């Protein structure tokens, strides 16, 4: 909250400044907020990812077509049964303190991710690895029993519980990046501060001025050659409109366009729009009445005319009743609840719920213009179509995330951006064991379908499994109501060359130049 005030003051102060010539080689971006953490094993949010992806690399990285290509591993092999992967690390990769990268750094990082003591929300990412889930649940005490082993300094062997078609894709994601036991144990919580952190990606952390900016400079020892930029300055301007003014004054080089400004700026030469692999949904706390009844959840889902949302947001959003977004394999647009206000009211009656007697439904979102617009539209639709009362409340992002874990409100908004371009990433999110599933809903049948799909190599059989799982999620049990698929709307300064927006909303700056 107070950041809004600072943003406003900053805007005032900056508006008075003359236009300074931008320093060549320096890229100035806006993170939008302070990253909750730079500890890549524990991070969960897109702001942290944006910084971490400049600092670190994994075994593989995403190529231009979003397929995994070798990064820290120069190659890998998989046994014919699809159960054992062997990664061969690139020679001569060094951390920023000069220490060579070794296979043990992966073993340590993966054990740390899975350690119940770490309580990492993304631990389930490695559950396909043999013994990982049992270790995370505390049923298996011995970390050596987890199926990840350093055969020698440069060879990492991973044994899976079963075949997994997309496993190399997982290794492009931050929670699987290697980590240094010596650094983390020496500095504890403070190991991510610039004076302690040790990384090996294209950029290194120069300074972290909390709630103001992060400065990155090139890592001259980067294995793929140093990036061309001299510096990245990542600011934390909360207000999208403030950031836009800073862009128009030549103080920021890349900004997101606030929804209401898109119409004016869509003809700007630096305007870019790409559809995102990002779903936006409303989740229910399925443990509390009235949303402990799937009929009530279904009724609330059917009472939303999603076609209104793109009109309100105007950022190229696509109304979505399904959960796997287009652009992802096994997407199926025919899945999901259709808008049917009459049917929704009937369903509520069947469930024995009298909308007039229901206490106000509380919808909580994190403070942001888009979320506020969506919330007000949904509030109105539910009031009009169901006759229920709806109260809105907003929270600052960190508080919001904490509340989701501790005590989710009856209805909350969240989005999910792809961590890797496979439907499993969207579907296993709502598995009963996923710590990112805040609905408190779990279905053994859903879990089984998603797990089988992850192992299924035949595309048409895999499609059938995901279709069935999506029907449970979006039509029958409805712990979440998908609303729309987002688009990415950016303005890129003309002095920036070689930057391309990416449907996963990842920003890569190795090939970027700033004139």
């Amino acid at each position: 909250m107070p950041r809004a005030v600072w943003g406003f003051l900053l805007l005032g102060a900056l508006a008075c400044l003359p236009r300074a010539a931008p320093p060549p080689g320096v890229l100035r971006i806006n993170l939008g907020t302070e990253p909750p953490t730079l500890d890549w094993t524990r991070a969960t949010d897109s702001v942290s990812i944006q910084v971490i992806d400049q600092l670190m690399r994994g075994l593989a990285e995403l190529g231009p077509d979003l397929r995994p290509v070798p990064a820290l591993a120069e190659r890998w092999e998989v046994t014919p049964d699809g159960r054992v992967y062997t990664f061969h690390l690139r020679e001569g990769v060094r951390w920023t303190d000069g220490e060579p990268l070794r296979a043990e750094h992966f073993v340590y990082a993966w054990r740390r991710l899975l350690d119940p003591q770490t309580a990492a929300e993304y631990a389930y990412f490695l559950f396909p690895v043999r013994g990982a889930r049992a270790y995370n649940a505390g049923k298996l005490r011995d970390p050596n029993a987890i199926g990840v082993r350093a055969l020698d300094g440069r060879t990492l062997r991973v044994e899976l519980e079963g075949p997994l078609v997309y496993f190399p894709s997982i290794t492009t994601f931050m929670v699987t990046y290697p980590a240094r036991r010596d650094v983390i144990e020496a500095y504890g919580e403070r190991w991510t501060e610039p004076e302690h952190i040790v990384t090996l990606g294209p950029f290194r952390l120069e300074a972290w001025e909390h709630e103001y900016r992060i400065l990155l400079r090139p890592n001259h020892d980067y294995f793929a050659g140093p990036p061309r930029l001299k510096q990245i300055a990542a600011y934390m301007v909360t207000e999208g409109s403030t950031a836009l003014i800073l862009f128009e004054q030549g103080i920021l080089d890349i900004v997101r366009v606030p929804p209401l400004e898109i119409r004016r700026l869509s003809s700007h030469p630096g305007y870019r729009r790409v559809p995102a692999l990002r779903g936006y949904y409303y989740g229910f706390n399925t443990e509390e009445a009235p949303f402990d009844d799937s009929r009530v959840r279904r009724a609330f889902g059917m009472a939303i005319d999603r076609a209104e949302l793109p009109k309100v947001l105007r950022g190229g959003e696509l109304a979505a009743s399904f959960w796997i977004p287009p652009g992802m394999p096994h997407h199926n647009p025919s899945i999901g609840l259709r808008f049917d206000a009459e049917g929704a009211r009937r369903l509520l009656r069947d469930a024995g719920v009298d909308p007039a007697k229901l206490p106000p439904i509380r919808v909580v979102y994190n403070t942001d213009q888009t979320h506020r617009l969506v919330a007000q539209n949904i509030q109105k639709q539910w009031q009009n179509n169901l006759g229920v009362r709806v109260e809105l409340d907003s929270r600052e992002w960190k508080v919001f995330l904490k509340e989701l874990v501790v005590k989710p409100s009856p209805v909350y908004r969240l989005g999910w951006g792809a961590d890797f371009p496979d439907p499993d990433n969207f579907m296993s999110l709502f598995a009963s064991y996923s710590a990112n599933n805040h609905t408190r809903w779990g279905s053994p049948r859903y879990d089984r379908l998603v797990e089988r799909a992850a192992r299924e190599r035949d595309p048409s059989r895999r499609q059938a499994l995901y279709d069935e799982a999506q029907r449970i999620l979006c039509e029958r049990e409805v712990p979440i109501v998908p609303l729309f698929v987002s688009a990415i709307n950016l303005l890129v300064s003309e002095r920036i060359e070689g930057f391309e927006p990416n449907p996963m909303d990842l920003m890569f700056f190795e090939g970027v130049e700033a004139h």
Partner: protein
Amino acid sequence: MSGAGWVGAGLLLALVTVALLGDRVSGHAFDAQDPDRALETPSLEHWMGTDALGRDLFARIAEGARVSLLVAVGATGIALALGIVYGAVSGYVGGRLDDFLMRVVDVLYSLPDLLLIILAKEVLEGVLVGVSDLVRTLVALVLALSLTSWVGVARLARGLVLQAREEAWVEAARALGARGPRVLTRHVLPNIAGPLVVTAAFRVPVAILAESTVSFIGLGVQPPFASWGVLASDGFTAMRSFPHLILFPSFAIAATLVAFHLLGDALRDALDPRRKL
């Protein structure tokens, strides 16, 4: 009352009328949405245009007037009542009690207003349970705003009482056997009412502005209800593309401030006893 005073009073009357009738005059409910007609500029149908959800901005400003005026007048009323009692007692009794009460006021006076308002509002919201969100926020806002403004009233009231209690007519009342409370309520207070009424008129705009500030940073009433501060904050985000969204709420705030100032000025002149001579 002077001409400017009448202008202020007229402006205020217009505002109250709009607040009371608002969305009935324009024919649009303040929370009725029509996404197909979002972000329209002012027209005959939508006098002040529409917002991102296709809601009529005039109806929302009228609704905002209700919230803003209610909060501001409520907060000023409480501040006035509390401040007068506190200040009058302090000034009339005097001595050690006066010293103590005034040191408390000094401490409160030294705290930054906005910080205190935000803190008080959060605490009060935690305490108020079992009411609807809107009521809770409104009550918390009113109490939080009055918390920071009563100290000024208390100082003023104390000063006025100190001055008045030395006057001959107070002595006369005492000589006739009137005791403390009676002297205070029957003789002192009516004589110092003028400056207090004036200060009230000046405090309402301060409260409106404070409420706008608190709402602007996202701590005001929750949607779909909106105070002028909320509307201005919404409009601010689209200032460049849709200036009508910020212009009209800002104009409403400015007009109210001017109205109360003109009225306050006029009242001060009208109620000043020396001016009549």
